[in-house]
C-alpha cells in the first residue's frame, strides 16, 4: 500500500492531463454554479421566513394548513394522471401502427406527429380557447362543460406531450425479434396471446419509462394551465402566483419542493429501469417485418390520421386566429396582429431575443455538453471528478423548469452573490436553458460515444497526437449526426420554453414565449396566437434546415460510413 501511495504522489502531471483536469473542473464548476448552488439555496429558502431566519418546517406546516394551496396537489395529480392515460394510450396505438402494421402514409404521419414539439405549450392552450372557449366554433362538443379547467389542461398537455411519448414507444416497439414471432406462429399461438406474451413484455421497460416521462412532463408543465386553467390551480401555476403575484418567495420555494418530489421519483424509477434494460435484444435478433392485413392496416391508418388531424386542427386554428381581424365577428385576414401592438417595447424585439438565446444555447450547449460527455466517457484518470460530473449531468432531468427558474432567482439575486450582475442578463438565460435541457443531450452524447471504438484515444496517444486533435479530427466528425441532433434539440427547446425563463428576464431580455404569456394576460389573444405561431414557424424552419443539413452531411459521409 505504501508503494502505491508513493506512485500516486510521484505522478508527474503532463501538460495534457493538466489541461484535461482544468476542462473537467470547468465542467463541474458550470453545473455546480448552474444547478447545485441554486437548488440548495432554494431548499434553504423553503426553511426560512421572510426575514431570512431559519424556521424549520413552519412554511410547510402553513402550506398544508391552507386548503387553497393543498388542493393544487390533488388537482395536479388528477390532470397529470388523466393526461398520462390519454397520451400513453393514443401514443401506444399510433406507435403500434407505425411499427407493426402496413398502414399507408407512415412517413407523413410521423412528420405531422412531431409538429407539437416545435410549438410552445402555450400554443395549444390558445388554440383550444379559440376552438372550445366561450366563442369557440366547436364549443357545443363539450356539452356545456367549460374548457377553462381540467378538460382544457388535459387536452392542451396531451397535444404537446404526445410526440415525446410517440418517439419513446416507437423506439421500444421497433426492437422486435422476428424469431420469437415465428416460433409462436409455429406453435399455433393465437394473435392475442402472442401480443400478451411477446409484444408487451418486449416493450415493458419502454412503456414504464414512457409513463413516467409523460407524467413528469404533465405535472410540471406551466404553459398550458397558465393560459387555459382558469380558476383551476395546479402546482406549477401556484409557484408562479406565489412568486410573481404575491411576492411570497418562501411559499414559492415550498411549492417548488413539493413539485420536485414527483419529478425526482420519476427520475429514480427511470434510472432503475434503464439499468435493468441492458441488452434485452441480442445482437442476432432479426427485425420483425409486418405483412399486409388490409383491415388492421386501415383501422390503424384511420386512428393515426384522426390524431394527426387533431394536431393540424390545433396548429391551424392558432395560425388562423393570428390572421383574422377580430374573432369571431370580423373574419377578414390581416397581418396586424404580427405588429404586436399590445407590447410597449414591440414584440419583434422579444422574438429576436429568443432567437439570440436559441442560437447561443445551441452553439455553446452542444459544444460544452458533448465535450463534457467525451471527458466523462473517453478520458483516463480523475475518476471521482468524472463520476461527479456524470451525476450532475443526469440531475437536470429531475428538476422541473419552474423549480430551476425560481432557484435561479434565489441564488443569483442574492445581494451578497458575486454573480449577482448576471441576473436578468442574456448570459444567465443561456446558462439556465443549457442546464434545464442538459440531461437529454448528455445521454445522446454518451450513447453516440459508446458506439465508437474505445481505442481511438489510445491510438492517438501512442502516435503522440494531443487528445484535442483526435477529438476534432476523429471523434467529432464521426459523432456529427448526434451532435446536430443535440443542437437542434437545444434550439427548439430554448425557443419554446417558458417555465424557467419566466422568472429570469428583464425588460431588455424578454423572450418570445414570455411575450405570449403577457399578451394573453393583457387580453391581446390574437397577438398571443401570432407570437406562438411565430415561435412555431421559427422552430419549424430550423428543424427543416437541420434535416437538410443532416441529409447532406450523411450523404457526404456515406463514402466512409458504408462498408463495401
Amino acid at each position, binding site marked *: 500500500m505504501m*508503494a*502505491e501511495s508513493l*506512485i500516486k504522489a*510521484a*505522478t*508527474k502531471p*503532463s501538460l*495534457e*492531463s493538466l489541461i484535461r483536469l482544468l476542462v473537467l473542473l470547468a465542467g463541474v464548476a458550470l453545473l455546480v454554479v448552474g444547478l447545485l448552488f441554486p437548488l440548495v439555496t432554494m431548499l434553504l429558502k423553503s426553511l426560512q421566513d421572510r426575514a431570512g431566519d431559519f424556521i424549520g418546517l413552519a412554511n410547510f406546516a402553513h402550506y398544508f394548513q391552507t386548503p387553497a394551496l393543498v388542493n393544487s396537489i390533488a388537482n395536479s395529480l388528477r390532470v397529470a394522471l388523466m393526461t398520462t392515460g390519454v397520451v400513453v394510450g393514443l401514443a401506444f396505438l399510433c406507435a403500434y401502427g407505425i411499427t407493426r402494421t402496413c398502414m399507408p402514409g407512415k412517413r407523413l404521419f410521423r412528420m405531422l406527429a412531431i409538429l407539437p414539439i416545435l410549438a410552445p405549450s402555450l400554443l395549444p392552450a390558445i388554440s383550444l380557447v379559440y376552438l372550445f372557449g366561450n366563442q369557440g366554433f366547436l364549443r357545443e362538443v363539450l356539452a356545456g362543460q367549460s374548457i377553462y379547467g381540467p378538460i382544457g389542461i388535459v387536452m392542451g398537455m396531451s397535444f404537446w406531450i404526445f410526440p415525446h411519448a410517440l418517439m419513446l414507444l416507437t423506439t421500444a416497439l421497433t426492437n422486435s425479434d422476428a424469431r420469437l414471432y415465428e416460433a409462436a406462429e409455429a406453435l399455433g399461438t393465437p394473435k392475442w396471446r402472442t401480443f400478451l406474451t411477446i409484444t408487451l413484455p418486449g416493450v415493458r421497460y419502454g412503456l414504464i419509462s414512457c409513463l413516467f416521462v409523460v407524467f413528469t412532463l404533465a405535472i410540471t408543465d406551466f404553459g398550458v394551465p397558465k393560459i387555459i386553467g382558469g380558476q383551476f390551480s395546479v402546482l406549477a401555476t401556484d409557484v408562479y402566483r406565489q412568486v410573481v403575484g404575491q411576492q411570497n418567495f418562501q411559499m414559492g420555494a415550498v411549492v417548488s419542493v413539493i413539485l420536485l418530489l414527483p419529478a425526482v421519483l420519476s427520475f429514480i424509477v427511470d434510472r432503475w429501469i434503464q439499468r435493468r434494460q441492458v441488452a434485452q435484444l441480442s445482437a442476432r435478433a432479426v427485425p420483425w417485418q409486418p405483412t399486409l392485413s388490409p383491415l388492421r392496416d386501415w383501422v390503424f391508418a384511420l386512428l393515426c390520421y384522426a390524431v394527426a388531424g387533431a394536431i393540424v386542427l390545433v396548429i391551424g386554428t392558432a395560425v388562423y386566429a393570428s390572421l383574422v381581424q377580430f374573432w369571431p365577428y370580423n373574419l377578414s385576414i390581416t397581418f396586424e396582429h404580427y405588429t404586436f401592438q399590445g407590447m410597449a417595447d414591440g414584440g419583434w424585439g422579444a422574438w429576436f431575443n429568443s432567437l439570440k438565446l436559441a442560437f447561443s444555447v445551441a452553439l455553446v450547449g452542444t459544444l460544452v455538453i458533448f465535450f463534457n460527455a467525451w471527458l466523462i466517457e473517453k478520458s*483516463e484518470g480523475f475518476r471521482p471528478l468524472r463520476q461527479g460530473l456524470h451525476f450532475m449531468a443526469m440531475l437536470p432531468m429531475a428538476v422541473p423548469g419552474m423549480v430551476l427558474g425560481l432557484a435561479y432567482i434565489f441564488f443569483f439575486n442574492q445581494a451578497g452573490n458575486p454573480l449577482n450582475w448576471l441576473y436578468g442578463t442574456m448570459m444567465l438565460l443561456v446558462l439556465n436553458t443549457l442546464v434545464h435541457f442538459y440531461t437529454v443531450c448528455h445521454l445522446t452524447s454518451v450513447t453516440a460515444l459508446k458506439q465508437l*471504438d*474505445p*481505442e*481511438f484515444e*489510445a*491510438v*492517438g*496517444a*501512442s*502516435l*503522440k*497526437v*494531443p487528445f484535442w*486533435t483526435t477529438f476534432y*479530427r*476523429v471523434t467529432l*466528425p*464521426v459523432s456529427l449526426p448526434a451532435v446536430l441532433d443535440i443542437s437542434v434539440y437545444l434550439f427548439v427547446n430554448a425557443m419554446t420554453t417558458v417555465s424557467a425563463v419566466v422568472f429570469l428576464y428583464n425588460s431588455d431580455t424578454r423572450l418570445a414565449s414570455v411575450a405570449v404569456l403577457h399578451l394573453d394576460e393583457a387580453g391581446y389573444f390574437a397577438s398571443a396566437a401570432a407570437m406562438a405561431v411565430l415561435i412555431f414557424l421559427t422552430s419549424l424552419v430550423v428543424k427543416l434546415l437541420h434535416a437538410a443539413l443532416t441529409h447532406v452531411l450523411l450523404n457526404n*459521409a456515406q*463514402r*466512409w*460510413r*458504408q*462498408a*463495401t
Partner: protein
Amino acid sequence: MPPTMTSPLSVSTAATPRATTTHLSIDGVSKRFGSFTALDNIALEIQEGEFVCFLGPSGCGKTTLLRTIAGLTRQSAGRLTQRGKDISMLPPQARDFGIVFQSYALFPNLTVFNNVAYGLRNRRVERARINDRVAELLALVNLTGSEAKYPAALSGGQQQRVALARALATEPGLLLLDEPLSALDARVRGHLRSQIKALQARLGVTTIMVTHDQEEALTMADRIVVMNHGVIEQVGTPAAIYHQPASAFVASFIGSMNFLEVTAQANRQALLGNTPCACLPHTIAVGQAAQLAIRPEAVALSLQARALKHQAGALNGEVVSIEFLGAFQRVTLRLPEDHQTLIADVPSRDSSKLSLYVGQLLAIHLPAEAARLYAAGSSQQ
C-alpha cells in the same frame, strides 16, 4: 543508429543485430483492480530487436501487462525502464511505442493515407516527406494504391495492415500488438502471421505481441512468455517452451499433453499402477502422487507380439477409438491396470504397419527422455 524517417529500409541497415542490449525491463510490476490481482510481481527483460509473445488463457493478465507497458493502465507497483529511461510514471504520449489493437481502431472518417499519416502530421514534417513516408509504409505492407480508400472499403486483413503501417509510421522503438490476428479468418491469419514476422525481422523493431493462440506464438516469437493468473509461468524460446515445459500448466497449455496419474519413485522413476516407468529427473518425494506428462507424438506403439514385456516403461493398452487427422492418426488407448486413458499420435506411414482397429491390444512405450513428472493437481488452468 536507428534509420531516419526517409532512409531506405534495407535489410542490411534495419536488421543489424543489437540483441545483447536490453530494450525494456519490467521490474516487480503489479496491478490490482480492487481485490483482484491482475499482475503479480512481474519481472521480465526484453532485448533490443526481439519478438516476444505474451501467451496465456483469457484473464491471465497478458493484455493488462501490454497496456501497462503502453501506459494505458497504470501499475499499482513496480518499475518500467525503456532504453535505460524510467518510464513508470510517464503518460502514453511520452512513451516510445506504436500499438495495433485487436479492433485496429482505424479512424473510419479518414482515408488510408490520412490514417497512416496521422502521427506524422503532428510532427510538423513537410508535406512531401509525409507523402514519401506514407508511400514507403504502404509499400511495406503491400497496400500501395489504397491511399484514397476508407477503412470500411477494406477487408479485415487489409485493415490490419493499415493499422500496422500507422503504428510504424512514427518509427517507434517498440511495437505492441494486442491480439492483432484474432479478428481474422484462419486463412488470412496464417498468411499475415508470416508477413508480420518477416516485416519485424526486416525492420528489427522490438515487438511484443499478446495472443491466446499458441500456434501464433510458437511460429512468430523469438521468445514466449507464458502467463497464468497474473504471474509468469515460463519464459523461453518456442522450442524450450514446447519441449521443456517448466510447469504442468505450461505443459497442458501448449500443444497436446497426456497426464497420467503416477506415484513418484526414486530419481528418474515413477510407478504407473504397478508398472515402473522411466522419466526425466524430478524433485518429487518418493511415494508422493504425481502426474507424468508425455506428448501424444512421443508415445510409441507396437504390436503385442513384438513388445518387450519386461522392459521398464513398457505397457499394454486397448485401442478405444481412432481419429483420422490426415498426417497422423490419433489413437486413444485404455490402460488395463487403472483404466486411465492415453492418447498417441501415430504418423500415417507407421499406422499401416500396426493395422489399427478398435479393441486391438498394443504395446506402449513411454520414452524416458519425453516423460516429465509434475506434482499432482498442478495442471489446472
